[in-house]
């Protein structure tokens, strides 16, 4: 029997005060007027709990933009969900945090873009760094479970040790160091984000050292860069296997990026129950299991470990969502990844040898995400 999903990712809004150049939101963001109401979300949370879901990740955009966030946390907690707030910290105050904790918020995950303020603001497209530095100790002192999240890429990997030191100074229980994943806005900005081979090798060493040094104090979870891996990532633990994402307008998706795949009809929680969507809908069944797999996946020993990799990445790169994820060294489309890495690592590539500084970067260096309508 199909197991219940473990987690619900609720993208409660795509509105955000930040414009991070690697944002995982889709290029076509949900408009503010299309967002689910408070009641809609409360209903989804109750359904999620009944379905057997344990964790709720309140994500966005920036969830704090929703004026009803306190009601959402309250409803999620009462439904029995373990509630995690994924935030930039912008819009958080001590009193708002305390209200959220009273309502039952279990965990706060705060992002940082860089250790250097000017660089961090450049990556976020707004002056958010100082606000984060101010709110981090407030979160730590509140006693809530606290994770710091850092997305790493070519423009901040040279400061990884300083980034870890910054995170360490705020004493979270957990630190997530995630190499950027190339979908959404990160795919648009990939040319400037893809790290060099040397940066990747250094980052693995630095993270391993930090894990050893901080053992028992800060748990470090690392997400490796799949362009440099031999085998693809087990994206989302398999399509329709572990997680459900509901976007601001109520569309239920197997992952953040699934909306890019043409020909898939995503059901809306306004029209269908979460349970039906999970068990029965075409979109969740499309790549579930192994029936859909082409070669070399179909006969590969690793198919039950990585599920053929990521469907969205397969589509973005090969134009065919059914193909093997090109990140896999065995994939027919892998030469594309090799070409990207060859170019990025070429000594004549100005992008890798000459990192522009904020202020000196040419106009249009980044494609910043705008606000949704």
């Amino acid at each position, binding site marked *: 029997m199909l197991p219940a999903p473990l987690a619900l990712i609720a993208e409660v809004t795509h509105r955000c005060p930040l414009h991070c150049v690697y944002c995982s939101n889709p290029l076509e963001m949900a408009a503010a007027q299309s967002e689910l109401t408070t009641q809609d979300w409360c209903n989804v949370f109750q359904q999620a709990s009944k379905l057997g879901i344990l*964790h709720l990740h309140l994500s966005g955009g920036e969830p704090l933009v929703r004026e009803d966030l306190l009601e959402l946390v309250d409803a999620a907690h009462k439904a029995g969900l373990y509630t995690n707030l994924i935030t930039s910290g912008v819009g958080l105050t001590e009193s708002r945090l305390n209200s959220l904790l009273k309502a039952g918020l*279990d965990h706060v995950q705060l992002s940082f873009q860089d250790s250097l303020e000017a660089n961090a603001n450049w990556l976020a497209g707004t002056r958010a760094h100082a606000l984060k530095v101010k709110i981090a100790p407030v979160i730590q002192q509140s006693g809530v*479970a*606290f*994770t710091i999240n850092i997305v790493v890429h070519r423009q901040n990997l040279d400061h990884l040790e300083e980034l870890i030191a910054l995170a360490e100074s705020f004493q979270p*229980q957990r630190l997530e160091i995630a190499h950027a994943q190339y979908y959404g806005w990160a795919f648009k900005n990939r040319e400037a984000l893809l790290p060099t081979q040397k940066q990747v090798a250094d980052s693995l060493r630095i993270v391993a050292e930090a894990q050893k040094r901080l*053992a*028992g104090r800060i748990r470090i979870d690392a997400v490796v860069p799949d362009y440099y891996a031999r085998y693809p990532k087990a994206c989302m633990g398999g399509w329709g296997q572990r997680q459900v994402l509901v976007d601001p307008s109520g569309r239920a998706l197997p992952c953040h990026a699934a909306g890019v795949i043409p020909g898939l009809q995503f059901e809306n929680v306004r029209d269908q129950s979460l349970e039906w969507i999970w068990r029965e809908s075409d979109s969740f069944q499309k790549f579930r299991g192994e029936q859909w797999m082409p070669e070399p996946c179909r006969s590969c020993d690793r198919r039950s470990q990585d599920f053929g990799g990521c469907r969205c990445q397969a589509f973005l790169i090969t134009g065919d969502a059914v193909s093997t994820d090109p990140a896999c060294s065995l994939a027919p489309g892998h030469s594309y990844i090799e070409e990207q890495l060859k170019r990025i690592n070429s000594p004549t590539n100005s992008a890798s040898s000459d990192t522009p500084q904020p202020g000196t970067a040419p106009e249009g260096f980044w494609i910043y995400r705008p606000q949704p309508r």
Partner: protein
Amino acid sequence: MPHLEESSQPRLAAGCRWAGEGENRALLFPEGALRLQDTGRAILERCDGRRTFQQIVEELQTQYGVSDPAKIRDDVSAFLERLQQKRVVDF
């Protein structure tokens, strides 16, 4: 790395809590959950910040009536130290 002493009083770390009943009883924590049966559950349910490590071991030795008390002590110690590194338990 903190060291587990006889007098340590293990407790669930911030953000770790129990949910569900019976077979579905699980320990929830940031980004994860443990569905524990038998001894694992018996150990963690005693990590209340009041009982000492020594008391927990004695209670389990009584409950499970094992012939080798040193082994149960080592097993509990290894289990708690592993969960401390995952930041699920503090002591």
